[in-house]
């Protein structure tokens, strides 16, 4: 294993991905995108539905082969050597894929087996993760008995079981209560401090602005810009105050934020007056 402190934990190099969609049309989901995430960085991938975020994640996970370009996790090509590359990867996909045949605690322990993790390491780690994600009292519950938010939390917790150096989260906070969302934010910031590289796909601009050191805005399969949330706001929004008509006749005045950038760059101006 090489020291990756100077190398990026994740490198996406000129990734393109095309496939035939359900109607049989050839579809370019991702077109020549590049970015890298060094250790200790949280990188946000923002874009509307169908922008190519999930396809990018499926390529990073090694499940979809890239049409062009390559993806390196800790300098290992994930498509050529998925077994080795994925030892460093923890992933929480957008769709729920918990193994409902196992109870909450067993869920985590069984997932660890696929990573060669010995039981004497996995068991205390699973207990600790349930504590951190406030699921300890559900350790013996069946997955079906959990609420949507709890399932989501458990699936994020499961991504931590292998102590990954690259964490990929696709919409991790969808359906979470505000207090639980904050717990997850805390966990992510702490993991980042410990050197974890994090790729975060989210619809919540506030979340991206809080957590991400860098943000890429992706639209129709292409990255339109990459920068820190602060720089993006400076670059795209020249106004000091944004006026937004939130209800007919009710106009809010507020400082510009990442959401304004997102709306402007992706070409939608709904509701916001004159960006």
């Amino acid at each position, binding site marked *: 294993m090489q020291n990756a402190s100077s190398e990026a934990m994740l490198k996406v190099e000129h990734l393109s991905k095309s496939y035939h969609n359900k109607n049989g049309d050839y579809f370019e989901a991702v077109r020549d995108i590049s970015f890298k995430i060094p250790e200790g960085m949280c990188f946000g991938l923002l874009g509307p539905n169908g922008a190519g975020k999930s*396809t990018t994640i499926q390529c990073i996970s090694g*499940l979809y082969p890239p049409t062009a370009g390559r993806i390196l996790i800790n300098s290992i090509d994930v498509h050529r050597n998925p*077994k080795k590359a994925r030892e460093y990867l923890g992933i929480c996909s957008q769709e729920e*894929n918990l193994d409902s*045949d196992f109870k909450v605690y067993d869920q985590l322990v*069984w*997932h660890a087996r696929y*990573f*060669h993790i010995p039981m004497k390491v996995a068991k205390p780690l699973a207990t600790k993760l349930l504590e951190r994600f406030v699921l300890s009292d559900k350790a013996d519950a069946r997955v079906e008995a959990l609420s949507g938010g709890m399932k989501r939390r458990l699936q994020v917790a499961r991504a931590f079981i*292998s102590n990954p150096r690259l964490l990929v989260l696709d919409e991790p906070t969808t359906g979470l209560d505000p207090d639980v969302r904050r717990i997850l934010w805390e966990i992510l910031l702490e993991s980042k401090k410990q050197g974890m590289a994090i790729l975060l796909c989210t619809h919540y601009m506030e979340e991206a602005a809080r957590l991400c050191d860098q943000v890429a805005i992706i639209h129709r399969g292409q990255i339109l810009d990459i920068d820190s949330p602060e720089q993006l706001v400076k670059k795209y929004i020249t106004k000091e105050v944004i006026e937004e008509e939130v209800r007919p006749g009710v106009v809010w005045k507020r400082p510009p934020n990442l959401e304004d950038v997102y709306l402007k760059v992706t070409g939608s101006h709904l509701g916001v007056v004159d960006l």
Partner: protein
Amino acid sequence: MTESMWGIWSVWRRYFAVFRKSFLYYLTTAFLEPILYLTSFAFGLGNLIGDVKVGNEMMNYQSFVFSGVIAQTVLFQGFFEGAYGGFFRLNYQRIFQAIATTPVTLSEVIWAELLWDASKATLASLLVTAIGIATGNFLWSSIILMIPVCFMSALLFGALGLCTAGYSSNIDQISYPQFLFVFPMFLFCGVFYPIDVLPDPLPTLVWILPLTSVNSLMRTIAVGTPFESYALAIIIAWVVVAIFMARRALMSRLVK
């Protein structure tokens, strides 16, 4: 993509751990189903029929139908585990998608699924074999050859079930191969009567369906009917084709 035994084993163990939790339920149903068929056909119908002519020899109908029920068990257990179990794991649990982001590859998960479906159906069919031996219908030594033949056949029907699961976009679509393929095999491939009593050209045509070969080979092992070497060749060919089709179905379903 390189497979490792460890990857396949780690997933197979997952199936086994789940299976252990419902073992008693499984054992009960795996025993009950063949016993229901056997009681009805071997003892009910068998009393009306007495002996049947297989090839040029007469044999007891009870023994005849007993070996047929082994083949039927492999067919049903293998196909339904692959089709319905596979469909559930693919579309509701999504364990393929979840495990294939770990150091275990998708190809290994699919191999484990194939081997598991086959393992479960093999176990069920060996139970029937054991009942057959205990009731004096088969020689005890038949179990030695029965193990590999049951496993091969289980792999065949499990893979066809899994292929069905991969190509079905909703659970109702599984009924098509069930009624067009599985039930016709159950009824026409020699489970309950020798195929040569069927009108021409059916006795030849039914060899297209793999259960005819499975029945022939199992009956040779269990009750010593003449060995038809092409039956073995047909089974092996079907196993290869079925596994290829199942893997293709799942790969094309999961990988873009």
